[in-house]
């Protein structure tokens, strides 16, 4: 009988994200958690993934540990294929070279639209103001498949985002193309600390695909302020492996600034 593994919800979210990245593909990596996801993935699973950072690092192989808060520092841009600047970085994505984009979010709605700007109030006088797009808007607009990484907190899953910072499927099928965004792009997965979502091909609405082993569909959707679609068959995602946890805790974030979170257990 397998022993129980202990981990934080953040660790699960990161490990789950890392398993989605394809080797030999390109991924435009957003600030913060997505960087850690990419680091874990490159270390364990996808040595030949090409990461791209918006300030002009093409294909870095980041040096561990992660220096919290940084993206442009020498650890993160280590052993790049090429060093350029921001306008070139967004040329790579705009011309179609970025297979994936990976972004965090403050709020997300059923169409995968992202808010990272403010909560409540108006744009001019918000109740709470956050960092805003950074380069997230470009990543979500240009990359072929956008992966959103977000803590599974119900208040983050809203029927309508307070501010539409970075485009998901906007108000439904065809809306991206109608707005002039590149054809065939859009949100691909939403990686949370409890579950994994995709988007329905027809309706473009968020669809529950799998849950952390031991977490029920009802537990996943109960706090969400909208009801996602649920796949015909919902798969079970194993918890972080010992190796994933070791790399996260020992190599990437030994001070546990990033990976701290709610304690969870599951059977491996």
């Amino acid at each position, binding site marked *: 009988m397998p022993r129980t593994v202990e981990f934080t919800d953040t660790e699960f979210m990161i490990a789950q994200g890392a398993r989605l990245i394809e080797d030999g593909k390109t991924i435009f990596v957003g600030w913060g958690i997505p960087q850690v996801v990419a680091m874990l993935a490159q270390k364990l699973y996808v040595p030949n993934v090409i990461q791209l950072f918006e300030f002009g690092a093409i294909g870095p192989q980041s040096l561990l540990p992660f220096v919290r808060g*940084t993206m442009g520092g020498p650890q993160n841009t280590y052993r790049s294929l090429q060093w350029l600047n921001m306008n070139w970085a967004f040329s790579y994505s705009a011309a179609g070279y970025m297979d994936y984009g990976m972004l965090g979010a403050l709020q997300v709605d059923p169409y995968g639209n992202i808010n990272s700007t403010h909560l409540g109030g108006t744009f001019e006088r918000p109740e709470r103001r*956050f960092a805003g797009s950074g380069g997230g808007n470009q990543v979500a607009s240009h990359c072929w498949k956008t992966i959103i990484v977000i803590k599974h907190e119900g208040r983050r899953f809203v029927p309508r985002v307070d501010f539409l*910072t970075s485009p998901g499927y906007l108000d439904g099928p065809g809306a991206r193309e109608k707005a002039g965004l590149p054809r065939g792009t859009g949100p691909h997965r939403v990686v949370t600390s409890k579950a994994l979502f995709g988007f329905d091909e027809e309706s473009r609405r968020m669809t529950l695909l799998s849950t952390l082993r031991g977490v029920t569909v009802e537990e996943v959707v109960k706090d969400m302020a909208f009801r996602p679609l649920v796949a015909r068959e919902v798969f079970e995602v194993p918890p972080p492996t010992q190796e994933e946890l070791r790399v996260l805790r020992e190599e990437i974030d030994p001070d546990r600034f990033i990976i701290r979170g709610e304690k969870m257990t599951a059977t491996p």
Partner: protein
Amino acid sequence: MRDRAIRREGGVEYRFVPPDEFREHVRDRKSKAPAPKLFTAAEAVAAFVSDGDYIVYDFSSLTRGPQSLIREIIRQRKKDLWIGAEFTLHESPLLVGAGCASRIDVGFLGYGSYIGQAVCDGRVKAYEWTNGGIALRLLAGARGVPFLPTRDLLGTDNMKVSAAKVLNDPYTGDPVCVVPALNPDVALIHVHQADACGNARIFGTNLFALEASLASFRVILSAEEIVESDEFRKDPMRTTIPYFLVDAVVHAPFGAYPGAMPARYEIDLEHVDRLNAIRTDGQMREYLEEYIDSVADHEEFLDRKVGASRMKELRRRATVVEGYR
């Protein structure tokens, strides 16, 4: 320049200078002769930054930011600045907290609640252009065109709160976003090496160092090292900015502190934590007094607030040097 350069359309304010006006400034006011232009930070800021100016800076708060120049701007209590900033974690809170900045175009607006609260309270207006939008606006400014097109921003609320517009592309008929050129009053750029005339090298990536230098009415460089002019002609591929774009050069070792200068010194994370911890106006006043107002200049700041041991330690930590030369 400020008043002429503010445009208001449907509740949105934005900076815009027609290309012809910028070009005439360049023709009449940018010296192309290779004369030394070394200044102290206090002199450079006094001479080239005015109340009401629009200011951009490269790169981020944690990496190669022009932090010593920002502190000098605060020390001189410039007023009513409009900042165009991408990764602005600490400059914006400090500039707003000190009463220097009234508008910010972002970008990525800090963390910590101080700056967010200032936006909520209406003490500063924060306009959302996105990082890509700001970089593209500067590219337009650098290319002497009034706008550039892009296939992002479209479909989002950014279109409603900025002066980005939708055009129909004449070749496909499809909608495309255009953003207006940005020609700041001042660009602040911290570089690894400069000569006295303003030729400069940055090692590693940059956000828009050359774009901002070409697009700005005035360019102030701070440099870790001042080197011989002849260095640049020996290796022209490594020149980031040629001298005739530059108005002032300030010698500023540890000028990016508390951020890192790639391959020179690492971030001082303890000092960064102190910045991140600022939540109240009282804490802000304390920080400003302790680290900016109570010292006469950057050198006194380094002596009294950082110290040789700390600097030695931060240099020691900067072990990643590959590619930075």
